[in-house]
C-alpha cells in the first residue's frame, strides 16, 4: 500500500516536471526565435559590399579611389562618367564585364577552358586607364598595372541610413532600409489615424450607449471582423478598395499607401474597439454616478471622467492596434503597390517591411546577403513589436497600481 503510494507520487512528480517544461515553452520559443533571426540577420554584416565571388579592378594609375556602394551604383548606371568626380584621374569611365571580354577576344584567344581568360582581363585593365572591371575572382586580372579595389563589409550605418533598397543590383546591391521604414510607418500611422476615432467612437457606443440587445449584435460582428483572414482583406482591398481610391482621387494606380492604410484601419479596429471598451467598462460606477449627480450630462461624464479614467486602457488599445498594423503582411503586400522608394505623399505606392520579406524571401538564395538582409528586416520588425508589447504591458500595469 505504502509502496504503491510512493510509486504514484514519483509519477506525479514526473508529470509535474513535464507540465513545468511546457510552461516554459513560450519563453524557450522566444529565445529560439531571437537566436535564429539575429544569427541570420547579423550574418548580413559579414558579406562584402559587392556580389559574392566577384571583384572590382581598376588601372593602377587610378589612385585615391574609395568607392561606396552608392558610388558603384552611379558608375554602373552610367550616372557618373569621369573618374574625377570620384577623386580619381581625369579619364572617362569605361565599364568592362566578363561578357565584354568574350566579345572582344575570340574563342581561340581565350582558350577552350578559359585558360587565358585571366591574362586577357589583365590586358584590358592594364591598357585602359579609365577602365573598371567586374569579374569573377577566378578570372581576376593580375599584374602590377592592375589594382583590386578593396571590398568593404556591409555596414550597419549604410543599412539604417541607406535611402535605396535595391537588393538585386549588380555589382553592388543596395540595402538601405529607410524607404521600407518610412513606408511601414506611413501606412501604419495613417491606419491608426483612421482607426482610432472610429474605434473609440464604437467603443464608447458599446460601453455607454448600446442596449443589451444592440451589444449582442455588435460584439459578434467585431469578433468576425477580427477573424477574417488577412488575405481576404487584401483581396477585398485589391478588387474593391484600390479601384475606388484610384477613381476618387484620380490616380494613375489605386495601389497606394492610402489604400493600405484603409485596409489596415479596418483590421486594427477590432483590437482597438475591444480593448478600449473593456477599459471604459471597468470605470467604477461610483465615478459615473458622482459626475451625473453634479448635473453633468452623460456625454460630459464620458469625456471628462470615463475617458480620463480609462486613459491607460485606451492608450494600450491604440498601441496594440499600432502593433497589429505594423506587423501585418499579406493585406499590405496586396494593396500598397510595393515600390521601394521613400514616399512623398499618401498617394504614392509604398513597400512595408513585412511585405518586403514576404515578396522577396522566395527569390533570395539561402545564405546570401539578400537572404540575410531579409532576416535583418525580421529583426527590426521583431524588435519593434517587442517594444510595443512591453510598452503596452507597462502601461496597463501602471494603471493597476494607480487606483
Amino acid at each position, binding site marked *: 500500500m505504502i509502496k504503491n503510494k510512493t510509486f504514484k507520487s514519483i509519477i506525479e512528480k514526473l508529470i509535474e516536471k513535464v507540465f513545468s517544461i511546457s510552461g516554459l515553452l513560450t519563453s524557450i520559443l522566444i529565445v529560439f526565435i531571437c537566436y535564429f533571426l539575429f544569427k541570420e540577420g547579423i550574418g548580413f554584416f559579414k558579406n562584402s559590399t559587392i556580389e559574392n565571388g566577384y571583384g572590382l579592378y581598376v588601372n593602377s594609375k587610378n589612385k585615391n579611389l574609395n568607392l561606396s556602394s552608392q558610388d558603384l551604383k552611379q558608375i554602373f548606371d552610367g550616372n557618373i562618367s569621369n573618374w574625377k568626380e570620384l577623386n580619381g584621374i581625369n579619364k572617362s569611365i569605361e565599364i568592362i564585364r566578363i561578357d565584354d571580354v568574350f566579345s572582344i577576344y575570340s574563342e581561340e584567344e581565350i582558350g577552350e577552358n578559359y585558360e587565358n581568360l585571366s591574362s586577357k582581363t589583365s590586358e584590358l585593365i592594364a591598357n585602359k586607364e579609365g577602365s573598371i572591371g567586374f569579374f569573377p575572382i577566378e578570372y581576376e586580372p593580375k599584374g602590377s598595372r592592375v589594382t583590386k579595389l578593396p571590398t568593404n563589409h556591409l555596414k550597419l550605418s549604410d543599412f539604417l541610413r541607406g535611402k535605396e533598397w535595391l537588393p538585386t543590383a549588380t555589382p553592388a546591391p543596395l540595402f538601405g532600409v529607410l524607404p521600407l521604414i518610412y513606408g511601414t510607418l506611413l501606412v501604419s500611422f495613417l491606419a491608426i489615424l483612421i482607426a482610432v476615432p472610429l474605434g473609440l467612437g464604437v467603443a464608447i457606443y458599446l460601453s455607454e450607449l448600446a442596449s443589451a440587445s444592440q451589444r449582442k449584435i455588435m460584439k459578434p460582428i467585431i469578433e468576425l471582423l477580427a477573424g477574417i483572414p488577412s488575405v481576404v482583406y487584401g483581396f477585398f482591398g485589391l478588387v474593391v478598395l484600390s479601384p475606388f481610391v484610384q477613381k476618387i482621387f484620380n490616380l494613375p494606380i489605386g495601389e497606394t499607401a492610402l489604400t493600405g492604410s484603409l485596409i489596415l484601419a479596418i483590421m486594427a479596429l477590432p483590437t482597438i474597439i475591444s480593448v478600449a471598451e473593456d477599459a471604459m467598462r471597468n470605470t467604477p460606477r461610483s465615478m459615473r454616478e458622482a*459626475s451625473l449627480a*453634479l*448635473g*453633468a450630462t452623460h456625454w460630459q461624464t464620458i469625456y*471628462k471622467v470615463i475617458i480620463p479614467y480609462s486613459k491607460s486602457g485606451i492608450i494600450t488599445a491604440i498601441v496594440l492596434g499600432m502593433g497589429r498594423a505594423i506587423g501585418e503582411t499579406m493585406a499590405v503586400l496586396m494593396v500598397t503597390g510595393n515600390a521601394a522608394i521613400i514616399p512623398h505623399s499618401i498617394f504614392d505606392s509604398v513597400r512595408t517591411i513585412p511585405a518586403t520579406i514576404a515578396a522577396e524571401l522566395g527569390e533570395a538564395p539561402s545564405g546570401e546577403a539578400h537572404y540575410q538582409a531579409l532576416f535583418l528586416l525580421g529583426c527590426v520588425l521583431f524588435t519593434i513589436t517587442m517594444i510595443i508589447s512591453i510598452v503596452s504591458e507597462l502601461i496597463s500595469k501602471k494603471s493597476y497600481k494607480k487606483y
Partner: protein
Amino acid sequence: MIQAKNIHFYYGNYHALKGINMIIDKNTVTAFIGPSGCGKSTFLRLFNRMNDLIENTKLNGECLINSHNIYDKQVDVDELRKQVGMVFQKPNPFPKSIFENVAYGLRVNNMGDKSFISQQVEKSLKAAALWDEVKDKLHKSAFELSGGQQQRLCIARALAIAPEIILMDEPASALDPISTSKIEELIHDLKQQYTIVIVTHNMQQAARISDKTGFFMSGELIEFSETKKIFLNPDKEETQNYITGRFG
C-alpha cells in the same frame, strides 16, 4: 420642500418600495434608518433620479420638489441633479486635482468664469471644513487625501454648484470616528442653508444630527416623525425593537 406621494418602486419584479408618503421641510436634516436592504438608498436616490441609471426599473407615485413633479416628461434631469446634490457612501473623488474636483460641477454646468470658479472652490472647501488642510496643495491629486478628507472633498464638490438639497447615503460609514464627527459637525452647519437628507446605519448619529427620522423596513416607511420621538417614544413596536437592537 420635498414631497413623496404613494411611491412604489420596482427592480424588475422585485417590489422595493411599497407605497411611501413623506414630506421633508426646507432647511432641516432628515435621517433614514432601517435594516439593510429595506430600501433607504432606493428611496433617497429617487430625489435626484439616480435610479434612472438602473435598467429595468419602474416607479409609480409622485415625487415633488417645490411642488414640481420631478418625474415629469419636461423635467431636465441634469438641471434637477444640479439642484439636488448627492454624497455617496464611499468617497469617490475623480482622478483629478483637488481643485478640479470641486470645480467640476461648475465647469460642466458652465457656471461663471475663471475667477468665479476659484472663488467658489475656496468657498466650498471652507464650507466643507477642508480648506485649511488642502489650501497648499490644491493642484495635487485628490487621491493623496485621507478617506475622511476625500469625503469632505466630495461634500465640497456637491456644495460648489449651490444645490438646494443635499442627499447623503451613509456618508460616514467608511470613515474613522474623528472624521465621522467632523462630518457630523459639518452637516449641522450646513443645515442653515441646505435641506439635507441622510441615510445612516448609526443610530446615535441619526439622533445627534437629525431633526426628523424615518424608519424603513422591507420597503415600507414604518414611522416618520421628530427624531426625539422616534428614539425616546416611538409609536410602533418594530421601531422600538429596531432602535433597542432587539430586531431580528
